[in-house]
């Protein structure tokens, strides 16, 4: 009997590893749901107009839930610029704020972007925040840096400072965050292509291009 015991132990450990791995995989797999009909961009329930870049009538919409302090979001922003050039009028991009608690300055950055948005320069601030992410993420004087970025993109500085502390900017960030929570979002960047969540495994240039192409093909068939 003792002779066979190691075989039994090793087999049991192998089964336990596979079983617990599978259970963990099921539990950890993100359960992001598709954007429901009543919450799509065309639905009237979206009280605050989202930040949209590109052709408003584009057949494909890429909606991103992003955190300005999250490095993968920064890398994704660079890639998004390439995608916008590549797909031109066939793609429109929507950005929603989803500042994560693990990032100390993410909420403040989201407020800065919203404050810029109140002067019609959301995307300019979005681009600067991602471009300079490494600088302001580690800086002790984040607020001063945001104000200097506001000056660089030609904002009215007094209004920007006031708007950053305004209820309006805060409410917008909170509304996006709640919308993301309702969809089951836990990590950033989380993307939706024509209201369908992009699988985490496809969150890479090839995967996203393939999803956009599939969405374009689907649209052309309907």
């Amino acid at each position, binding site marked *: 009997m*003792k*002779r066979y*015991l*190691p075989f039994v*132990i*090793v087999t049991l*450990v*192998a089964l336990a*590893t596979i079983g*617990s*791995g599978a259970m*963990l*995989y099921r539990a*950890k*797999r*993100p359960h992001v749901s598709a954007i429901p009909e009543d919450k799509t961009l065309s639905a009237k329930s979206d009280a605050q107009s989202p930040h949209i870049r590109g052709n408003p009538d584009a057949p494909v919409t890429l909606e991103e839930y992003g*955190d300005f*302090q*999250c*490095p*993968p*979001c920064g890398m994704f922003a660079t890639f998004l610029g390439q995608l916008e050039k590549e797909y031109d009028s066939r793609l429109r991009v929507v950005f929603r704020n989803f500042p*994560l608690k*693990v*990032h100390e300055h993410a909420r403040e950055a989201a407020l800065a972007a919203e404050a810029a948005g109140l002067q019609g320069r959301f995307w300019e601030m979005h681009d600067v925040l991602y471009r300079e992410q490494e600088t302001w993420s580690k800086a002790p004087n984040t607020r001063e840096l945001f104000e200097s970025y506001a000056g660089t993109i030609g904002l009215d500085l007094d209004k920007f400072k006031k708007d950053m502390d305004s209820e309006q900017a805060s409410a917008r960030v909170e509304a996006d965050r709640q919308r993301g929570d309702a969809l089951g979002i*836990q*990590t*950033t*960047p*989380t993307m939706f292509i024509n209201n369908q969540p992009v*699988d*985490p*495994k496809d*969150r*890479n240039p090839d995967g996203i291009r393939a999803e956009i192409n599939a969405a374009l093909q689907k649209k052309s068939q309907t």
Partner: protein
Amino acid sequence: MTVSRFRTIIYVVAAIVSLAGLADATYLSVQALTGETLGCGGSPDCFRVLGSSYARIGGIPVALFGVLAYFSAFTFATFAAFGYGRARTFLIPTIGAMFLGTLWLLYVQAFLLHAYCRYCLFSAATTFLLAGLVIALPPGRDRSAS
């Protein structure tokens, strides 16, 4: 305590340590397979390490190789503890390869990524412990069970 008994104790400890490493590597593999390491949500340093290009070899998560390595170490240590003499012959090179792999991964974290993932550090600690146990093994051949 006889040399043979001392060896058996070392093999049992090595098997238990391998189990801890196996659990850690399984957790990391699941994280990589669910895509959790590609985005922000957990520890910033962890995703910097696990989301980097060094965390995959030919598209396969390095953690999966870790699962294979720890399971092999566990298997060989268990068989050696039960007196299978040939298991020791496989256990030593397996742990040697794991030790070298761990050194490379520590170098990547310290000098290339400038970030440490606590799960990877735990794995490094278990591998170093395994290497220490193997070094502590008294020389000579194990008594064969068969």
